[in-house]
């Protein structure tokens, strides 16, 4: 009898543990999401919209100065949003549906993404909504559920968003796997879905027609680094790839390898390591033996930084070193001299200065805030937290939708879809243009990665070194 009692207890212990774990993350998410939802709804609405509108350098001074004007504008906006929703004929409430990973392993990145998206929504609403040419004011409302970072219920939740909550537009969950499952539902109900935080190419090669990608796809994560290498030193011949054996990194590196071969590089080493690797000795020995001029690869933060440190300790003479994911993280600087000269791709960096002027130069339309305005609004709204590129991606997904609604001059899905198909735009996040071919409809073809390099400028600093038009410094080559 005693044994019979044991099993339920053990089971429950495990379950509760899992629940607590999830909720441990949840609290973090909640503090961020809730305080932001609350404070952001009020405070951000003012500051964010204000900064965007005014382009003021000093936000605080500005807010202080504008409080009265703001409150006035805000109350009108709010009452307008509230009352017009059912009374006035010239207004429309658009529902944006998405799931967030409030629990589970994608929690941190997903929270950033959702914060960015929420900031966009708040600033649009605070500015009085999106105005169409016939005077209709489009205001936004979000409906969101927790997808728990797993695919079990993603389709159920997206069906709920599409049918029960009558979401007009969808935003993807975070990560390629969840997005692939959600995309099937978006397509089935003909809902336009802007994906962000979903880099994998394969989702967009499934024959979908209503899904549009904001991120640079995985296949182009490292191609820019090869372009940079070729431009910096045309004499380089031998390239090595050492990468983490995971879905994302493998996809990235395989595409980069093909590209490197097409550029005429000789691949002297192509090795995957286990995601839990802590000792890169065997790989470093192989690198030493094959003597490449450039190394590309890595995977995520832990393994990437360990790899960089061990490579520096062994004094391997390599001219060009690019790693995925790890270098853009501020913590990468903890490596000290080992970080110097390391290059990494990023979807967005605050140093990258896309402006209306650079848009005019490139012959593109410009839309939305500048990077500085976005960063100010974000730090203002989220208690001083710096936005990660996930957050910027979330905001950018919103901007893409907003511009498409404006361009279509309607919220009709077909019109918005047509506007997205024809979109060729520059935002603070970068260039946005979608593939419209049948084979890979919705794949991002305009946006490209930004490459940062850790340089010594009286202390370790991230500098944008590629693409040339967004660069803040020349590339440090060869790597010291």
């Amino acid at each position, binding site marked *: 009898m005693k044994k*019979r*009692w044991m*099993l*339920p*207890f053990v*089971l*429950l212990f*495990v*379950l*509760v543990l*899992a*629940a*607590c774990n*999830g*909720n441990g993350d*949840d609290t973090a998410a*909640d503090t961020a999401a*809730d305080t932001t939802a609350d404070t952001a709804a009020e405070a951000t609405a003012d500051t964010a919209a204000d900064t965007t509108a005014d382009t003021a350098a000093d936000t605080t001074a500005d807010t202080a100065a504008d409080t009265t004007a703001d409150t006035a504008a805000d109350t009108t906006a709010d009452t307008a949003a509230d009352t017009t929703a059912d009374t006035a004929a010239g207004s429309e409430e658009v529902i944006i549906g998405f799931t967030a990973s*409030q*629990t589970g392993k994608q929690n941190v990145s997903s929270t950033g993404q959702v914060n960015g998206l929420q900031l966009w929504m708040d600033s649009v609403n605070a500015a009085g909504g999106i105005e169409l040419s016939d005077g209709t004011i489009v205001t936004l409302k979000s409906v969101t*559920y*927790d997808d*728990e970072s*797993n*695919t*079990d*219920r993603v*389709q*159920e*939740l997206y*069906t*709920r968003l*599409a*049918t*029960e909550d009558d979401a007009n537009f969808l935003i993807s969950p975070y990560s390629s*796997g969840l997005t*692939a*499952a959600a*995309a*099937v539902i978006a*397509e*089935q109900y003909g809902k336009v879905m802007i994906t962000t935080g979903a880099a*994998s190419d*394969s*989702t967009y*090669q*499934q*024959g*979908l027609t209503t899904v549009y990608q904001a991120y640079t796809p995985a296949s182009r994560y490292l191609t820019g680094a090869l372009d940079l290498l070729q431009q910096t030193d045309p004499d380089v011949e031998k390239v090595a790839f050492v990468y983490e*054996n*995971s*879905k994302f990194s*493998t*996809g990235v590196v395989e595409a980069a390898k093909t590209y490197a071969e097409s550029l005429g590089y000789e691949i002297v080493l192509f090795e995957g390591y286990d995601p839990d690797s802590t000792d890169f000795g065997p790989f470093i020995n192989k690198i030493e033996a094959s003597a490449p001029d450039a190394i590309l690869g890595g995977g995520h933060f832990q393994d990437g930084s360990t790899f960089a440190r061990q490579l520096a300790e062994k004094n391997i003479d390599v001219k060009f070193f690019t790693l995925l994911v790890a270098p853009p993280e501020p913590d990468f600087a903890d490596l000290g001299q080992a970080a110097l000269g390391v290059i990494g791709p990023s979807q967005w960096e605050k140093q990258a200065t896309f402006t209306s002027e650079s848009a005019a130069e490139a012959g593109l339309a410009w839309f939305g805030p500048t990077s500085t305005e976005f960063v100010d609004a974000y730090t203002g709204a989220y208690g001083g937290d710096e936005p990660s590129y996930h957050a910027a991606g979330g905001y950018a997904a919103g901007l893409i939708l907003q511009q498409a609604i404006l361009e279509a001059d309607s919220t009709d899905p077909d019109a918005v879809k047509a506007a997205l198909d024809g979109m060729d735009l520059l935002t603070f996040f970068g260039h946005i243009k979608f593939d419209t071919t049948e084979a890979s409809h919705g794949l991002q073809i305009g946006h490209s990665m930004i490459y940062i390099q850790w340089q010594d400028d009286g202390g370790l600093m991230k500098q944008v070194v590629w693409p040339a038009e967004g660069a803040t410094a020349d590339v440090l080559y060869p790597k010291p």
Partner: protein
Amino acid sequence: MSIPTQTKASPPSRTITAVLKEYAGLLIPIGVVLFIIAWPTITGKDISREAMFTVLLSIALASSLNILLGYSGYVSFGHVVFFGLGGYVGFYLMSVHEWLLWPAMAAGGVSSGLLAFLLGKAILRLRGGYFALATIGINEAIRAAINNFTPFGGPVGMTLNFQVYKNYGGASEALWLSFYTLAAMTLIVITVSYFVRTSKFGLGLLAIREDEDAAEIMGVIAPNAKTWAYVLSAIIPGVLGVLFFFKNGSIEPLPAFRLHFSIEMIVMVMLGGQGTVLGPIIGGLGYQSLRGFLLTSPIFKNIQLAVAGALLLLIILFIPSGIVGWLRKRVPALRRVLR
């Protein structure tokens, strides 16, 4: 109310009510499942179909696991391995070799059954906690193997082109088709579960659950009985894995072999009442409806895991034998009808 016992009732003289009473243990579960299947048609809402898909999937998986866990008392913590492996084999055949869904499902079931047979021969000699630990290890090992297996896409996984749904009349029809296929599979697994429960083979399993040594002395060939129970409980998860990932459109090692899913299956079996036919159905329905409700309710959606955990704790604390077990204990009249 006099109920004729099975030995006394001679076949020709049996009335319809007598037959109904005899098979009530099968008819009640089937009735409950048929109601769940009909629910989307009754409400006419797509969301009901999606919600009931999750519920039916859980019922079918929990019922499969119950054949091993409930009847023979062996806890398989890594049962999701069959779901994942079957899913992978079927998905590979559908995406690379362009098989249709049904043969791919059959292939998924066969491969899972085969794996269970081989594993059963090896690890079912372990008892109790050691067996449970071994099943976890196997799940992790198979996942690691698939992560390094290039034909299955390695860590990248595989995706299904959206165009394949056109073979089934379009994406919308494919979703309905998946639902009804799942419905059929659920009915099959319940019928199998009932006949195992009432057969001599099932009695052997129950004897093993109570005391394996005593069962062997009484003539039950324990290793064989356990292996076949393991195989039976593995086939349907393999079939359902193919169906789930077909509907999902993509497959990756981590979601396919998610250990947490295994634990949920065990919880559902325990909640409804292990070792009964109806139990896993009530457990699956109850657990998934509760989670679905909490996940989408405006009040609970931010603390849904904590609330679900607390509720399950209360239920299992006060009704350790599960809902069906509790009913059977409290209402003697139900013992004959609820199996």
